[in-house]
């Protein structure tokens, strides 16, 4: 084990057995673990020192310095500062919204504290996740500057849903794009090669936790970011295991079909997928959250705050994104008038 790996561990209930045991076992593995119990301390620590991995709790209301805050917001914040920041969420429960938000903010992993897999307890699973995260190369494979193939693959076991999503694709991406619809069975029987698609979207109410289904999902999701994969399913507490499985396999986006505005979110996601095809996404820094957490940044960091955000590369990427949004808006306006 590489002894120099450093971890920042954030949880607001340090006296819980699960947390103290986790800290002990991580240290026993040779990781260098710094522990913080507030979100502001976590953000300050980000500037103080380089960490290979961040482990964040979600429900931070116990000792919260920000009542509305949670680990997912810290995750977003970190990813916006560097899109290769590796964050694993280690959570007691979290809500459906947290699971989707965590996946959409590109967490590297999401382990529930009560999770168990055969002989492995959640701490074993966390350690396993840390090891695979460390071994995930920083740059993504298939990095490409080519435009995405203008074809969308829609996989669904629900004919009505495929039809509706196909209409949404046409409306959003225009006539140049074509869609191909498959059922999961058709896909499993004869899976087409991923590289002919710009986007793969898999939409159905629920995904079983059966090994065969999970294997298919993992195979599909492995292709992101070229093509970008979108998974849509019902955001229900009862589906926690399958939702977390998907979140742990890094979809480009997860869409909650139970959300009243899911169609809007799906169309936004299609635009974003085209825009970030072949690339890792960067979030716009959530300065609002930061101001509510009342953190004090080191002086030099504070001074460089603006400079950091106007980094050339990031600007270029934001511009791309904004142009896409504007075009989308224009189309919208045209339709309304």
């Amino acid at each position, binding site marked *: 084990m590489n002894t120099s790996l450093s971890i920042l561990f954030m949880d607001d*209930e340090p006296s*819980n*057995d*699960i947390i103290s*045991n*986790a800290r002990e*076992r991580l240290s026993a593995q040779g990781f260098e673990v710094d522990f913080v119990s507030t979100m502001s301390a976590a953000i300050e620590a980000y500037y103080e020192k380089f960490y290979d991995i961040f482990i964040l709790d979600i*429900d931070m209301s116990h000792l919260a310095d920000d009542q509305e805050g949670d680990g997912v917001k810290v995750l977003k914040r970190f990813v916006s500062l560097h899109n290769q920041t590796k964050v694993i969420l280690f959570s*007691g*429960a979290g*809500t459906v*919204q947290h699971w989707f938000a965590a996946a959409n903010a590109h967490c590297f992993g999401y382990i*529930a*504290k*009560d*999770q*168990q*897999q*055969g002989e492995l*307890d*959640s*701490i*074993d699973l966390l350690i396993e996740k840390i090891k695979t995260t460390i071994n995930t190369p920083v740059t993504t494979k298939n990095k490409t500057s080519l435009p995405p193939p203008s074809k969308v693959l829609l996989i669904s076991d629900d004919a009505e849903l495929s039809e509706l999503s196909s209409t949404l694709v046409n409306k959003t991406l225009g006539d140049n794009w074509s869609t191909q619809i498959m059922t999961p069975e058709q896909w499993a029987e004869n899976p087409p090669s991923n590289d002919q698609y710009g986007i793969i979207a898999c939409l159905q109410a*629920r995904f*079983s*936790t*059966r*090994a065969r289904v999970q294997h298919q999902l993992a195979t599909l999701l492995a292709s992101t970011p070229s093509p970008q994969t979108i998974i849509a399913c019902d955001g229900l*507490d*009862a*589906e*926690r*295991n*399958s939702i977390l499985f998907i979140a742990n396999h890094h979809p480009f986006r997860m869409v909650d079909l*139970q*959300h*009243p505005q899911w169609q809007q979110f799906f169309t936004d996601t299609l635009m974003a997928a085209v825009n970030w095809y072949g690339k890792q996404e960067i979030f716009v820094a959530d300065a609002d959250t930061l101001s509510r957490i009342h953190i004090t940044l080191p002086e030099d960091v504070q001074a460089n705050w603006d400079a950091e955000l106007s980094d050339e590369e990031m600007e270029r990427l934001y511009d791309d994104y904004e142009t896409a949004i504007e075009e989308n808006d224009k189309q919208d*306006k045209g339709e*309304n*008038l």
Partner: protein
Amino acid sequence: MMEKKNKVLSEKDPHWRSEVLDSFTKYDYQTSLDKAIDYLNKLPQRTDINEAITESDYVTIYYTIAASAYGVLNKNKTFDEKNWTYFFHYFDRYIELINTSDKTSLYPKNAETLLDNSLDLLISFQAKQLADKAKACVSQMLNAWDEKLALSVLLKKVFDERMDFKRPDAMIYTRQLAEIYLHIAKDYADQYHAECAAVMNLLSDLTYFEGKDNSEEEALAWIEKSLVLNPNDKFAKRRKKDIHNSLTINNQIRRFNHDTNNEIGGLQSNLKELKKLLCQSTENDSSLLYLQKIDNSIQRMAGIRRFVQKHAPDFKQVDIVKDIIIPLTASYQDCMHIQVIPETSYLWEVDCEYLRLALDNLIKNTFEAFDRQHINPQERQLRITLQENNKHLEIRLCDNAGGLDEALRDRIFEKYTSSKGISKETGLGLSNALTAIEQMDGSLQLDEKQPDNGSTFIIKLSI
């Protein structure tokens, strides 16, 4: 003199009546629009009538033009720039004029109509700017006429829009109009508190049914505001109680899940540490056995909680015989003879806890039947057989516990059905067994051919 002043335009000028008003009253708005504009343009040259025309006649002309333009737009249901401009241009001139006019000679109904039309056009064709522009129109009318007229039109529009189910996004517009109402009525709070409270109740409902992450909190906030204005509103009081209860329950469930998950995680990791220590320090098999039992109990508790909360099954490849059936039957071996075929391993993908729960209920059911029938423990037989059949696994449980009452057969899996009498037990055992199996896309039923002195249940599990 008085008589002359009160004459309306159509009485003063037959041209107006024949050229404009005729088509207007026949809903031929395109004609009335063209003719009214033409009439207005030619009016300066009309020496015959010029002097008799008063300010209120201009009000009538502007009203007719604007209302006609609205009529055309409304009929065609498509946006056109020209009529849109006509409407809002003459709406503005109408407002400008009534501002300085003596209201007693004007028709309030016309003012109401034009304000209503303006809101309707904004919703139909400029929804994106509805919030700002509707507020401007209402404020204009409010300043020119009075707040009573403007607010009553707006209030009616709020509730009309709420009922306009067919209009896409009607809910969004209702909300925007309602918010404008509250914003404007705020300045006249003393007079309109009941109306404001009604609008707040409406907003509460709209928010609640939007189903957003924090909808309940927002809905509760609106109801609370409404109750401040109208504390005796029974409807609002009841709604407040309902939303509050629902919020509390949801929060408690969330809290409960969070806390118990943390504890379960803690227990599991503590056990793991303890096992490690025991393995290192002693060869004491029985302590490890106890630990294993504790571990099983934790998993069972977690399984029961998942089941009660109707969670989707967590499929894992498990040895059904070695890991589920044998441990389950162990505690019954003293009171009945249980035979498992095959006795060795049988791997299948199931939710371990759900299958355990179903089998446990079925075995318990058999055991209770034996007891009820006073069957001698030596004669009690339960045979559990596993057989793969056309991509299904069939688990058959066959006993000699006397069989089922014919009358109960069809209802055996219904909730609260029990052969033990109604008051004694809850009668959820078989119903829960069925639910657990169905959750795994399997089936549980009585075999069509029942043995003479007992019963046979069949569980079918798919791949």
